[in-house]
């Protein structure tokens, strides 16, 4: 483990930014935080988390996939893929780090998504242990420890210092470039910090939320639960929950006619939208109830069924904070499944 005084944090940032594009949470004019590219003078935010999740770095909201032109009877394809630049995402919370595992299983399973893989290969994740979890946090429900975030490098912040521990080859290589700014240390201060965080975790209102009653094999039992009517009744179908969610992974592929060619691009889609998975025969989910159910069944039943029991929610709380009607996965989990009546 290595440490550095927080007074020297800008030197750390400058050193990282010398070799790679560095992104970190920054306070915005509206009072919330967002990942921004670091440059001299950028101030690192103290916010617990960003409104948009860091999945944007690997799976951006829109990206062009290819271009083509038709000339007479021939179609000319242009491969527009380029090698991604090297980048470092700094200050990723434990829940969001876990979301990369969930996305990896979707995008890196053969045949791997080369766009995603390209960015994943060139990105280094420096995580950060939480110090002030809030009432909407429930990462523990999914076995995530906010005091021990994963990532290529894990970091802990105390009043005066920042501590780093490399977990992967990529992380070791990055930490090595910071050797002059950091010093070797024992893990006493970090252990103390972990204990503090875990004490706060015990105070969180959602600490007892359990996944019992969910998981693979529960489709028959939960699909027709009568509670879906009431749960989905006020849903606007806006898709805010899916766009702020670090694990939502659905996209649409579309063609944009430029007038003298076609750009094929993809953009995030949302199961909450009326044309989601629309196909030649029409749409297979005609009501908002069915669309709403899809979001939660996917996270709590279908995904774990196909991924060794791994749930595709990390308890980040973004959908709790941002849904215009305050309907969310916690309310769903408390209405159906094993938390009933709690």
């Amino acid at each position, binding site marked *: 483990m290595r440490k550095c005084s927080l007074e020297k944090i800008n030197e750390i940032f400058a050193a990282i930014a010398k070799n790679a594009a560095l992104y970190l949470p920054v306070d*915005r*004019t*509206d*009072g*919330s935080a*967002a990942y921004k590219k670091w440059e001299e003078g950028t101030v690192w935010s103290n916010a*617990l988390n960003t*409104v*948009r999740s860091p999945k944007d770095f690997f799976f951006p*909201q*829109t990206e062009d996939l290819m271009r083509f032109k038709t000339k007479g009877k021939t179609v000319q394809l242009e491969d527009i893929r380029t090698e991604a630049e090297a980048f470092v995402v700094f200050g990723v919370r434990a829940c969001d780090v876990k979301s990369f595992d969930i996305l990896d299983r979707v995008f890196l399973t053969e045949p791997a998504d080369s766009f995603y893989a390209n960015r994943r290969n060139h990105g280094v994740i420096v995580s950060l242990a939480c110090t*002030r*979890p*809030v*009432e909407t946090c429930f990462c523990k429900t999914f076995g995530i420890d906010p005091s021990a975030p994963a990532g290529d490098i894990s970091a802990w912040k105390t009043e005066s210092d920042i501590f780093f521990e490399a977990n992967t080859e990529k992380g070791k290589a990055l930490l090595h470039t910071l050797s002059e700014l950091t010093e070797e240390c024992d893990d006493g201060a970090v252990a103390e910090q972990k204990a503090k965080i875990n004490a*706060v975790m015990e*105070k*969180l*209102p*959602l600490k007892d939320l359990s996944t019992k009653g969910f998981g693979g094999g529960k489709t028959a039992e939960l699909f027709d639960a009568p509670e879906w009517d*009431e749960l989905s*009744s*006020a849903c*606007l*179908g*806006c*898709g*805010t929950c899916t*766009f*702020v969610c670090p694990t939502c992974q659905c996209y*649409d592929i579309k063609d*944009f006619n430029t007038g003298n060619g076609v750009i094929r*691009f993809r*953009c*995030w*889609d*949302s199961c909450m*939208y*009326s*044309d989601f998975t*629309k196909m030649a025969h029409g749409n297979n989910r005609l009501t908002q109830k069915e669309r709403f159910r899809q979001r939660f069944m996917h996270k709590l039943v279908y995904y774990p069924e196909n991924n060794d029991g791994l749930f595709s929610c990390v308890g980040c709380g973004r959908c*709790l904070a*941002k849904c*215009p*009607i*305050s*309907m969310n996965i*916690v*309310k769903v989990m*408390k209405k159906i499944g094993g938390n009933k009546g709690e």
Partner: protein
Amino acid sequence: MQKITREQLIAKASELLSNGTVSQVLGWGKGEFDYDVTPTLFSSAEELENGFVFNDFCGANFSKYLVSKAAKADGKLLVFLKPCDTYSFNQLLTEHRFDREKVYAVGIPCEGMADISKVKAISGDGIASINADGDNLVVTTLYEDAPITIATKDVLAERCINCKSKKHVAYDELMGEEGEVLASNRFDEVARLEAMTADERFAFWQNELSRCIRCNACRDACPACTCEKCVFDNPNSGVENKSPANEFEEKLFHIIRAYHVAGRCTDCGECSRVCPQNIPLHLLNRKFIKDINEFYGEYQAGEEVDSRAPLVNYTTEDLEPGEVFDRGDNNA
């Protein structure tokens, strides 16, 4: 604190349910915390007792729900309307968006609703509980040992600070005391933007709209946006788009939407309330309202059912396009 209490509202709703006036109640459902209420349908006194809340966080405007919920209700639907909600109610009736016969509207007074992000800015994150106590909110958090007392007036939502009316323009029955139309300062911020140079104004909107994630919450919550299928959602429209391809397109979406609701927007403020990125969308709509007032005389959408909005009503006194054009020049 609200002048009308949860208990009074439950008593009223239970009475109307039991005497058969209504078969269902559209109200605020209890959340996980003290501030996250969900619009909910209640069918019995027991359900109301278990799940109905009314507090300083009941900002959601129910009028739009009448479009989908009133059509489905077996009998009449009881809806509680705050003064500002009644304007949306009338506007929807003007546009024939729901059947008035299927709705029983009870007007309730409103002291202004709190904005949870303003509360958190003062108390700090990690809310454990929030309770109203007279003119204050008493907040306990996970991090402070002592409760924090915040004056409710310091954390009111923007639209409530600039409330345009405490008077109900539609109801079957009124609870509590009726208020007055207010002289609000709601156009001050628009005037400040108008006074900017074109470049400054562009930079202002660039900063605000660049945050948009195109979730469409603003549109989906808007009582003036009730098209059954928005062109932007319709794969056959040729202009469907699920996400901003670039910042220019993003601005266009919001400007097109503002044009579409011009003259129909009641300034209810739902768009800004629901935006996850805190974009002050109400300022775009207020600009249109202010211009309409200045060009065609004072007009408040939703004040009366069936009123002719200036933009769809030709009169010989209408100003000439050239005058608008000249004004644009002066603003450049």
